[in-house]
C-alpha cells in the first residue's frame, strides 16, 4: 500500500516568507509526527498529533512554527517569517496506534532551503 507522502519534495524560499509543508500519512494511522533533520544530524522531534489534536508540540522551536491536522489525516506544518536557520529536511512519520511501541513510518521529507 501507499506509504507516507510529503509535498513538496523541495522548497526554496526567501527569508521572511511563509511556507506550508504537507504530510499525507498512511491510511488509518492515528498518530502523526513531525521531525526536523538538519545537515549532519539526526531527526529532531517537533510535534505529535493523536487524531486531530496536537498531543505534544514541545519540540516546535518558536511561535513561527505551527501545525494542524483538521480531519485527523493530512497534516500541514506552517512556518511564518522563515529564517535561514529553518533550512533543513522536514520529516513526517505516522504510526497505527500511538504510544504502544508501534513502528513509525517516515515519509521522504521536504527539503526546505531559505535563502
Amino acid at each position, binding site marked *: 500500500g501507499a506509504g*507516507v507522502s510529503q509535498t513538496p519534495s523541495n522548497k526554496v524560499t526567501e527569508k521572511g516568507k511563509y511556507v506550508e509543508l504537507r504530510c499525507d500519512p498512511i491510511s488509518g494511522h492515528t498518530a502523526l*509526527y513531525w*521531525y526536523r533533520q538538519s545537515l549532519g544530524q539526526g*531527526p529532531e522531534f517537533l510535534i505529535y498529533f493523536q487524531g486531530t489534536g496536537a498531543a505534544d508540540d514541545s519540540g516546535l522551536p518558536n511561535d513561527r512554527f505551527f501545525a494542524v491536522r483538521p480531519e485527523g489525516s493530512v497534516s500541514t506544518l506552517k512556518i511564518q517569517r522563515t529564517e535561514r536557520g529553518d533550512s533543513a529536511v522536514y520529516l513526517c512519520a505516522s504510526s497505527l496506534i500511538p504510544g504502544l511501541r508501534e513502528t*513509525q513510518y517516515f515519509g521522504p521529507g521536504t527539503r526546505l532551503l531559505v535563502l
Partner: protein
Amino acid sequence: DQQVKQNSPSLSVQEGRISILNCDYTNSMFDYFLWYKKYPAEGPTFLISISSIKDKNEDGRFTVFLNKSAKHLSLHIVPSQPGDSAVYFCAASAVGYHNAGNMLTFGGGTRLMVKP
C-alpha cells in the same frame, strides 16, 4: 545536550565482514531502542528494535545488543552487503516520559559503506 549519541560518523567495511555500529545514551528513562536505516532522498526506514527488558534481539543478518548498565547499544550486521550502505540512526523512546508517547530521540547517525 544530546541524549543519544553515535560517536562514529562513518564506518567502512568489506563485503562479507561484520559491521558494528555503536550508540550511547544518557537518559535512564529510555526503555525502548530502535535502529533506522536511511538512503539518500528517502525517509528513515525501521530496521530493528529492542526493549530494555532484553539484551539481544536478532532478525536475520541484523542483531541489536543492549547493555543497560553501560547505557550502550550496538547493531551488528553479518554478513555485510553493498546494499547495506546507508546512514544508520539509533533512536530511543520512553513510555510515559513525555506526552508524546512514542516520540523518538535520534542519534546523529553513522554512515556505513560496504565495499565489494
